[in-house]
Structure formats: C-alpha cells, structure tokens
C-alpha cells in the first residue's frame, strides 16, 4: 500500500515532522511567558491589597499562590516557606510536567485573573465571535481578491490601471490604521455605523430577527476593515500569477482557438491558484491571532482580546491555552495544505513516485 501510494507516504512523512514541531511549539509556549519577572499574583494583589496590613496581605498572597499551584505545599496543605520566610515557588520543571499531564487529558486548567473560570470556558465563549468575524472575511476576501486579480491580469487596460494601485494601497495600509479610519469616518463623524461593540447595547445574544439584524449592522465596519486588506493582498498576488500564466502556451493556443473568455479565465485561475491556496490556509490558521487588532479597535468580542488581557496580566494558563489553540490551528492548516498539495500537485506526485 505504502509503495503503491506515494501520496500517503508523503503524508505520513510530513505528519511525523508536524508532531515534532507541535511538541517544540508547546514547550516554547509554556516557558516563554514564565521567563520574565512578572507574576500574575502581583497583578491581583495590586487590585486587592489597598488598605491591607502586611500580615493580611501576606496571607492573601499565599492563598492566591496556593490556589494557582505556584507554591509548594506540605502534606497538611500548608504553604512551605524558605529560611527567609518566603513561600517556596513550585519549580518550572514541575509545573511543566503538571501542564503536560493536564493537557493530554484535555484539561487546560483555570484562568488566574478570571479565577475560578476554566480556560476552555473562556475560549469557548470568545471563539465563535472570532470565527464569525474572520472566517467569512478571509474566505470571501480571498475569492473576491483572486477574481479581481485574475480579471485585472486578463483585461489589462483601464481596469488594471485602476485596480492595481488600489489593491496595492489596500494591502499596504496597516490593519489598525484602516480600522481606526473607518471608525472615525463612518462611526464617529458620519454616524452611519456603530463605532464599537458586536451588537446593540439593548440586546442579549439570542436567536431572533432583531438580534440578527443588529449583529449584521455592527458587523459591517469590522468586516470591511479586514476584507478590503485581504482583497488587496490577494488581488496583487493573483494578478502576477495570472500574468505569468497568460504568457504560457496553453492560453495563447486557447485564444487562437477562440475559446470563450470565461473559460480561459477559469483554466488560468485554476493553475494560478495553487500558491494562493497555501496563502489561504495560512491565513485561516493564524486568524485567531490576526483578529486582535480588529477586536481591540471595535471593542468586538473575541479571542484576540482574551489573549491580550491574558498576556498583560501574565495569566499563564490562559496564555498557554490560547497559544496551544493557535499552534494547533496553524499546524493543522499547514498540514492540510501539504496533504492537498500532495494529492493534487502532479509535480509532487511525480517526485514521490521517483519519476
């Protein structure tokens, strides 16, 4: 079977590498946030220690450290202290072993700053908003951008001369800048669209026409802020790919034969699409982290904000939980592309078969 199917051999080979990458990535994800001298308990203590005397503050701090498993406890459940009376911190190595064990059981632990909330609970509440904002935007943006790019390459003339600089401009504007511009012009100056939030203040999420209507209305600006940039970037890429394809013999031949314009465009599109497909997969993989800027500018609910607050407050379990999700998404998307390419790209098939 393995011998007869080079594609499967290719997939298994790649999968091995992905497993290794995954373990390296989660190790880095675990240690990186914990290397600095910041400590989540300090952030909490800053909020709650007003007016406390030293003894109460110490008791409170130790209660938190114990709760979050950051200190060693003796058999009786009391915090262990060193010679200077400071609590003994659980070593990083020990924490890592605990973390690996929990992760394998699918338990991401509970958030520190939002204690006693589970990390999975927080991610589950935020993820749908991120997906709803990013998934359609990236897919529709990808389709429209590639369509426009192919069209510009094929038509040339005025269409290309207008479309190309516009696409360059759109793709070159930083996302945060463009988002703020949209908010300022359409949200604050003209007041055509709401400037912040995911749906009307007077509503709660529910399955109703009023909610759907409100959510779509609030969706317009965040959607546009990502959409136009995706379209620009894709259009430029597709345009150059197509210009290359246009120079190929099969297009010239088809033109000579008088094949319908749309048909030629379709062939060209299919061939030029391969590298664009990789781009799509990568965009989908990293959409969770890419959403941050948009969510911040529009005060849009979602995972980006969760990650940001977690990082600011050194909320280790939440940071690690989110980065685990991002890592998994990126790796899966890449793997997906590898698999597809292995199946569809005749060149790779040929290479694997040793032809």
């Amino acid at each position, binding site marked *: 079977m393995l011998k007869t199917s080079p594609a499967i051999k290719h997939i298994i080979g790649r999968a091995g590498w992905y497993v290794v990458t995954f373990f390296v990535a989660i190790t880095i994800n675990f240690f990186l946030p914990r290397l600095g001298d910041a*400590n989540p308990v300090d952030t909490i203590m800053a909020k709650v220690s007003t007016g406390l005397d030293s003894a109460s*503050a110490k*008791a409170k*701090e130790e209660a938190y450290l114990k709760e979050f498993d950051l200190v060693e406890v003796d058999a009786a459940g009391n915090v262990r202290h060193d010679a200077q009376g400071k609590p003994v911190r659980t070593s990083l190595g020990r924490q890592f072993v605990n973390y690996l064990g929990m992760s394998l059981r699918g338990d991401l632990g509970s958030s520190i700053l939002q*204690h006693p909330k589970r990390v999975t609970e927080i991610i589950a509440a935020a993820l749908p908003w991120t997906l709803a904002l990013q998934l359609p935007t990236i897919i529709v943006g990808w389709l429209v951008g590639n369509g426009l790019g192919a069209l510009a390459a094929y038509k040339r003339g005025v269409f290309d001369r207008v479309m190309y600089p516009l696409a360059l401009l759109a793709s070159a504007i930083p996302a945060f800048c463009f988002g703020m511009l949209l908010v300022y012009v359409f949200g604050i100056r003209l007041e055509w669209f709401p400037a*912040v939030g995911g749906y009307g203040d*007077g509503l709660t999420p529910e399955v109703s026409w009023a909610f759907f209507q409100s959510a779509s209305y609030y969706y317009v600006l965040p959607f546009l802020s990502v959409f136009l940039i995706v379209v620009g970037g894709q259009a430029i890429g597709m345009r150059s790919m197509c210009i290359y394809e246009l120079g190929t013999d099969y297009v010239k031949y088809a033109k000579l034969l008088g094949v319908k314009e749309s048909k030629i465009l379709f062939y060209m599109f299919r061939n030029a699409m391969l590298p664009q497909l990789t781009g799509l997969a990568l965009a989908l993989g990293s959409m969770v982290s890419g959403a941050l800027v948009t969510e911040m500018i529009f*005060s849009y609910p979602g995972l980006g904000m969760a990650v940001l607050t977690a990082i600011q407050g050194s909320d280790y379990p939440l940071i690690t939980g989110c980065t685990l999700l991002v890592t998994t998404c990126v790796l899966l998307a890449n793997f997906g592309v590898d698999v597809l390419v292995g199946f569809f790209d005749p060149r790779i098939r040929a290479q694997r078969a040793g032809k």
Partner: protein
Amino acid sequence: MTLGKRATRALAISLALLGVANCRPKKDEGSGFPRAETFYLGGRQWGEPSTFNPLGTPGWPISTMNLLYETLLMYNSISGQMQPLLAESYAVHDDSVEVTLNPAARWNDGQPVTAWDVTFTFELGKSYKSLNIAPIWQYLVDVRAYGEDGREAQPGASEHPRRVVFRLNLAKKNPLVVLDALQAQIIVPRHVIEPLLAERGNNLDEFKKLKFDESAVSSGPYRLLSSSSEKIAVLRDDGYWGNQALHGGKRPAPKYIVHPLYKSNDAFSVALRQGRLDISTSFVPRIWLKANKGVRSWLDREPYFLSTSIPMLLVNHKRAPLMDVHLRRAMAFAINYKDIRELAVSGYSEPLRPGVILPFGLEQRFFSEEDANRYGTWFAPERARAELKAGGYTPVFGPDGELLETRDRAGKKLATLYVKSPTGWTDWESIVRIAVKSMRAVGIDARERFVDTSSFWNALYEGDFDLIMHTPSTQPSPSKPWSRFEALLTSQDFAPLGQRMYKNIGRFNDPKAPGYLPRIDELLAQIPTLTDEAARLASYRELNVLFMQEQPDLPLVYRPDTFYEFSIKHWANLPSGANPYLPPLIPGDRLGTNMLWAIEPVAN
C-alpha cells in the same frame, strides 16, 4: 440586448445597496432593554467578571457596592456625613462604635437583616486572614449583637437583634478605621453563607468556587440579570425594602442598569458622545470638546472634576543618595507642577500646594496657608539649585546645556536615578516625562523607566526602584486625611528591601535606623483618638509640616478617586457641581447608588 443586460445589472446592484442600507435597524434595541427604562454606565469594569461571590474577588456591581449587597452606612465625601443604609444610626463611644440596624431591612428572600448578619460578616475576617475585612481585627476586640432590652442577644433566640457593638482594641484605639469599614464592608446573609461554608468544611477556597451568578440572596435594590463578555445587566427588585423605608415609597427610575464591557477608554468616550452610555468613570481627555454632544463633567470649567487623591513619586529611602533631604527637596523644588497639570492631565486638577492635605473640600480645614508658605516646596528652580548646592551636589552640563552627570561632595559621579511607571498608562507617562525633564534642567540626573504593569507592582511593593509613581490611599472616607498620612509615613511593619511593604512603600523613617523621628508615629497613633477639633487641627498641622520639612515623597498633582462624566441625552437630574445633591459617584458605586431614585428619563 446588451443594454437590457446592463440595466438588469444596474438594478441588481442598486437593490443590493438598498438592502445594505436597509439593514440598519430602525431602533437600536430589541425586546431586551427599552432605552427609556435602561441606564447605561461604564468604566467600572473592563472584562467579564469571573464570579459574583461576595467573598471572592467579584467585579461590578458587587465590588463597588450597594446595588446588590449593601453596606451599613454610606459616606458623603461632600458633606463629610455618614448616610444611613442597612444601619439607621451609629454612635462613636469611648471604647466602642455602636450601630443600630433599620428594622425594615430585608434580604430579597424575605428574611430580616439582623445584627447576626453583621457579626457573622465581620467575624469572617477573623477566621479567614485573606479576606478584605481581616485587617480591621487589629483595631477590634469583638463584635457583638444586642437586643432591644440592651442585653446581649443569645444565638437561637426568636427575636431579631438590631444593635451591633464593635468593641475597640484600646491598645491601638482607632475609631476612624472602624468607621471606614462600616461604609466599605458589604454585609452578607448569614443564613445563606454559613451553611454553604459548613458544607465545604469551612474551606474558603472551595467556597470561592461558587459563582453566585443565579438568584443569589442579597439586600440591595437590584438583582443580577445577566453577564457576558460584552455586558453585565442588573434588574430592579420592586420588592426592595429601602423603597419604603428610605425613599418615601419611590422606586428607582431605571428598570435595568447595564454596564457594557468595552475594551478601551476611547470606546467609552465614543459611546458617551453618542448617548449610548449615560454615565462613565473612564478617563476622557479634553472633556470640554465634548460638551456640544451633551457630555458633561462634574464642573463645566477647570478643574472639571473633584479631586480626592494625590498621585506622587515615592522615593526609596534605602537607596543612596535618596536618604538625603537636600536632594529630595531639590527635586520637589525642581518639578514644574503647572506643566503637569496643564499638559499631562488635561487641567483636571487644582494647582498643587505643599504637603499632603488637600487645600480644598473637607480637608481644607486642616490645611494651613502659613505652614505651606514657610516650610513647603513649589516650582522654583533657583531654590532647587540652592538645595543641591547645600547638599554638595554639582551638576555637570555639556556644551549645549544638556546635563551630563551629577557629582556628589566627593566629586564622584552619581548613578542615574530611574523613575518607574507602568508602560501604557499614558497620563502617568506624561507626568513622569515632565518631572524628569524639570529635574534634569536643574541638574539632577534622572531618567524615566517605563516597565511592564505586572513587574511594576512587584517593584513597588518590594522596593525595587529609585523613584516610582503611586497614588496612596485614593478613596475618600471618614478617615481622610489621616489614612493618607498613614499610608505614606507609618513605621509599623517595617520591612527591608526585597520584602513587601504595602504602606510607607518608600521605607521612610526606619525605627531601627539613626535619625528615626518617633514624633511621626506618635502623631499617627494620636490623631484617630482626638475628638477636639482644635487638637486635631494642631496635630494635622504638625504632621504636614514634618512631611514638608522631610519631603519623604514628591506629590505631583491632584486627581479624582473616580472620574465622573455623564450624557444629558436620555436621563435628567444627575448630580453635578451645580446640583450637588450627591458626590460624583456613578450608581452602584457607594453613595452614587442613591441617584437612581432622583433621576428621570428625558421625554422624547
């Protein structure tokens, strides 16, 4: 044919555009919260609260009091009076503070609020040292319930005792901190909490895992309705006991109070301008520019807000050469306070005066103009240079007038003094930049150092700084200005660098070091026990003069405890400087809750 195709296309595009335009909802509300019955407030909570457990670390509305759970009394920072809530009266005796509960006070399950609830709440702090109420026990001997007949109430008796006596620890007599606690501690229902704790073996950590997010028993005028990562909503409880007992049968005007959880200060600003928010405590820069959009602040002219606290640079007295009073006074004379007020905080501050007593409001009676002029410091670069000279410091300036280094008496170069502040706190960053610039101008080698927020707190408490931004003891309370002095100057619990200190963070006046000034600790112990106004004035004056002479820290500007901006679009009769029937606090923040009975919806 082609024309027909084009026409169809044009028609399709116009229809699509029309569809988008039409998707704008007519009114931005659903069945959820009708605008005329909903009060939107913001700036008090930044992320979704993880719990509504009154013994945990809950967010709005529990953390700020009196919408769900209530305190015994409420402090009015304008009049200086305590206003009744669960308690109808209180009295301060020589050895105790006594409180009498309102006989009408009820939990929302119909049970009366009794003295047992109060004793239970306070005693929780005795059993669990990590609770906020725990520190009060160094000032108390016990808290007991008494019946109408004046005899101590017996547990299990059928009557509901209403009198509570807080017996003071006379070795550390301080009725002020007890009064502070009476207006800050929410009372929890003993009949609910006690069994839940017992079921968990009285393990507080286990108890804190309960979220109390559904039908919790509380005594306040609202109940929790919903909470998500976008907003928290509470619903009016029409059976609230205080409607009859405290508000003449009236009920709060808004049926719903909603706190949207925006992600940035700007978002709250925009929402306020657009009338989507009725009141906010977020920082809105240059508020006068928003007046034409119906946005108002406490005052309609400078300083716009009512200041209650003093952001300052704390000085590390355990690091050379900062223990030198000449250097500290040189810094205090060098800083351009006017620039800080005008450029860093949008003019939201009265002009700074020497010392740490506010020269306006209730504290004005303790402020002495004469002392300030004789002992104080202010922006006077020539005096800063004189102080440097007196301390033997020589600044070395480069050819373009830029400071190269500062040398001490022995001619040795002093290490640069770093001023720490959390990165991203933009108003503080501007304050620090101005302070550093003015110190360098007179020849003090200081530089700003902006650090990550969480490492900032660690540096603060463990004393890992030369100079650091901090606002001590911010909330107005009955113990002001004593508690501000105490937070800055007390030698109690003195700890070396590397160990934590939550008060006197700059480690001034080490009781074990030479030059210790016992008078400061004497005054701090004495002031809370004084009842004679003249004696209090004399003690406060003496303490403030000591501060001015020693200049242990560098006060920079005045600032409100919470900001207070509101929109006049949907609700009328909110308290303001022109109509100060309540202090500038949002509903659900201490006494601010009382405005809910006075505001009225604006007719369309």
